[in-house]
């Protein structure tokens, strides 16, 4: 692949990758790191891309996997620090604080950040469906293509996600009372 072609791909898709990463990690620094990793993977695997799906779909897929891996490693690091801190009998609540998505506007900041916190507590596949359908505003078919699922499976995942989300939000409200 020629460098000119690759730089064209980066220019076209970097905003999409960066914003999708932001929906998962809510931090500009982490989203930047993920975006770099995604394009490194794209560069290394572009020869394996068979063109069965659209390039956009393929890049979405790589981004989602990179974000989920990043969150897993971050959770592991947090667990390690938490464990070390409890052993040192010091307070480590700050390690678990969730940051606010930088794309949230001031007017509905509280409602949205509560909703995003609840979305973060959903299982990975349900969270991804909500991110793709509701934040990225992709169609059910596009989401199905990205996740390698049928359209029906996406619909049922979405319904389950909504049900779980409702439960999480109700529990949080009751906990606050």
């Amino acid at each position, binding site marked *: 692949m020629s460098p000119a072609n*690759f*730089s064209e791909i*980066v*220019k076209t898709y*970097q*905003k999409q990758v*960066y*914003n999708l990463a*932001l*929906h998962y990690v809510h931090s*500009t620094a982490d989203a*930047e790191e993920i*975006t*770099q990793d995604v*394009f*490194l993977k794209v*560069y*290394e695997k572009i020869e394996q891309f068979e063109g069965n799906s659209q390039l956009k779909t393929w890049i979405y897929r790589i981004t989602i996997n990179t974000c989920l891996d990043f969150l897993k490693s971050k959770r592991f690091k947090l667990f390690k620090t938490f464990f070390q801190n409890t052993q040192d009998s010091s307070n480590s609540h700050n390690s678990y604080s969730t940051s606010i*998505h*930088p*794309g*949230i*506007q001031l*007017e*509905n900041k509280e*409602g*949205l950040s509560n*909703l995003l916190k609840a979305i973060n507590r959903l299982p990975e596949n349900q969270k991804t469906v*909500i991110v793709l359908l*509701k*934040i990225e*505003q992709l169609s059910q078919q596009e989401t199905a293509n990205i996740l390698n699922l049928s359209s029906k499976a996406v619909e049922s995942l979405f319904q389950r996600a*909504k049900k779980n*989300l*409702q439960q999480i*939000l109700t529990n949080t409200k009751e906990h606050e009372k």
Partner: protein
Amino acid sequence: MKNNSSNYLMNESLDLLNGIQKLDPPSQLFDKIMLKVERQKLYHEKIDGKWLGIAAALLVGLMSVEMYFIFTTKQQKEKQQIVQLMGSTQNNLYHE
């Protein structure tokens, strides 16, 4: 009825997500990506190709030299043992 209304409320809450603004990536991100890719390319070029072939050839050469020495010393030892055994039959005590 209750289910329908809660579903409606949930959909309404999810519509809030449309309000999340898309941000422009930092201007230096493109350069950072290209630099990272370039570094990776250089790293691969350094490792693979000519040097990998030379290293493999050297390793094979060293191993074959070692095998040669092991076999020749083994053969020499065996020959020495046979000579020693033959020598012991010419003991002076048997002479009249």
